[in-house]
């Protein structure tokens, strides 16, 4: 007593013919119409070849303890300055003011990568001096490891000026990466592992901020401080030093890269095969109709073996 279907499997019917027949031509045409249109559909609907993708990584940033600070103290071009480069300090003469520097790099989530830099500079000033603008250059070493290995020296340049003399400049921002071109997906990228400021040269031009920034911005990979607005606090007590408080965060970066060969092929294959399945199903039905109903003459191999007498 057969109640229900317990198992089934398809039985194959083979259709045979010669090479030079209409059936062969038909099968060739169907082959072309099955395998070529999915490629056209996938390509024409954009995004077939993955040319750019992104990944997230928190970079390994370390403050290099090289700084350069220039503060304008008057409208006639008077300034005070200081840096960690002895050649630059020597060129300053009496404009040199050596500040008290306090630097702290914190790793708040204990993952081995610093997350924040706290910097405090207290610039001593004479009683009659007032600071109207500050230019501060900080250097960092910036490293990425996940896809291509990037090792570079980068900087953050902060500039703020005000028409009123101030007592404190408070900066709070993120150190962001700026890419001109996408990174490769593997390999070592250490072309920018040179110091941003040319040390070892006694000439004043190597400490010229405009030429430093011009050379730095010519790079394909740079960092900048993304700081909405620095806070300029006024009202300095007569003998109090000028305070610069900077807090620089090292956030998680979204980095764009050019995918490698296999990643491109993987995504292209997924797109091609998913459209191919539709065409395969459609043309399978058409071919079954054509050959089962003998629209084109072929010789079907019989299902049941005929007994020869």
């Amino acid at each position, binding site marked *: 007593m057969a109640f229900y279907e317990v198992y089934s499997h398809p039985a194959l019917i083979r259709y045979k013919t010669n090479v030079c027949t*209409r059936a062969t031509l*038909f099968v060739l*045409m169907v082959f072309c*119409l099955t395998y070529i249109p999915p490629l056209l559909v996938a390509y*024409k609907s954009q995004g077939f070849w993955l040319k750019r993708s992104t990944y997230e990584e928190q970079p390994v940033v370390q403050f290099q303890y090289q700084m350069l600070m220039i503060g304008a103290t008057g409208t006639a071009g008077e300034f005070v300055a200081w840096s960690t480069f002895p050649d630059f300090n020597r060129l300053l003469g009496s404009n040199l003011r050596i500040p008290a520097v306090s630097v702290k790099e914190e790793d708040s989530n204990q993952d081995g990568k610093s997350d924040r830099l706290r910097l405090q500079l207290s610039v001593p000033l004479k009683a009659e001096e007032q600071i109207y603008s500050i230019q501060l250059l900080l250097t960092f070493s910036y490293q990425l490891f996940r896809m291509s290995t990037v090792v570079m020296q980068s900087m953050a340049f902060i500039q703020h000026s005000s028409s009123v003399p101030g007592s404190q400049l408070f900066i709070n921002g993120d150190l962001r990466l700026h890419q001109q071109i996408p990174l490769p997906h593997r390999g070592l990228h250490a072309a920018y592992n040179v110091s941003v400021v040319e040390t070892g040269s006694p000439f004043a031009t190597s400490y010229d901020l405009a030429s430093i920034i011009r050379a730095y911005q010519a790079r394909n990979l740079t960092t900048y401080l993304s700081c909405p607005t620095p806070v300029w606090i006024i009202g300095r007590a007569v003998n109090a030093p000028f305070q610069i408080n900077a807090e620089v965060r090292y956030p998680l970066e979204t980095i764009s890269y050019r995918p490698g060969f296999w990643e491109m092929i993987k995504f292209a294959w997924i797109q091609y095969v998913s459209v191919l399945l539709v065409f395969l199903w459609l043309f399978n039905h058409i071919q079954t*109709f*054509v050959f089962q*109903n*003998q*629209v*084109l003459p072929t010789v079907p191999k019989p299902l049941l073996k005929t007994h020869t007498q």
Partner: protein
Amino acid sequence: MSVINSLVPARFLTLTAHLVIVITIFWSRDNNVRACLPLDFTEDQYRNEDNRLVIGLSVTLGLFALELLGFFSGVSMFNTNQGLLSVAAHCSASVSLSFFIFEQWECWYYWVIFSLCSVVPAVGELVQMFAVLCLKKKAM
């Protein structure tokens, strides 16, 4: 015989679909003509390209007339070869010409579709008509 019962309506439907789309292109050819001209084009260039497309569409309609003549007169209605060829060609043409209108393809795409999907079945139709009328073959 049962296969002919499905092949003849299929052929008629695809022929009609292709015909309808060609007539639609007649009315909406402005976008396609603009797609094959540069951004700043002159009236002369526009008229040239427009004329070319109109000629192409008119020749297509002529070939349609030929094929419909052969089909409705019964010369090739029951011929499975011509039926299959016609169905395949006009189906591909309908799909491609829909893309031609919606995606605003350039004018030269029309000539490709025309040569593959209008000329080939029309030639097959002519051959079939010649075989039946002149060589006295049976129209099957």
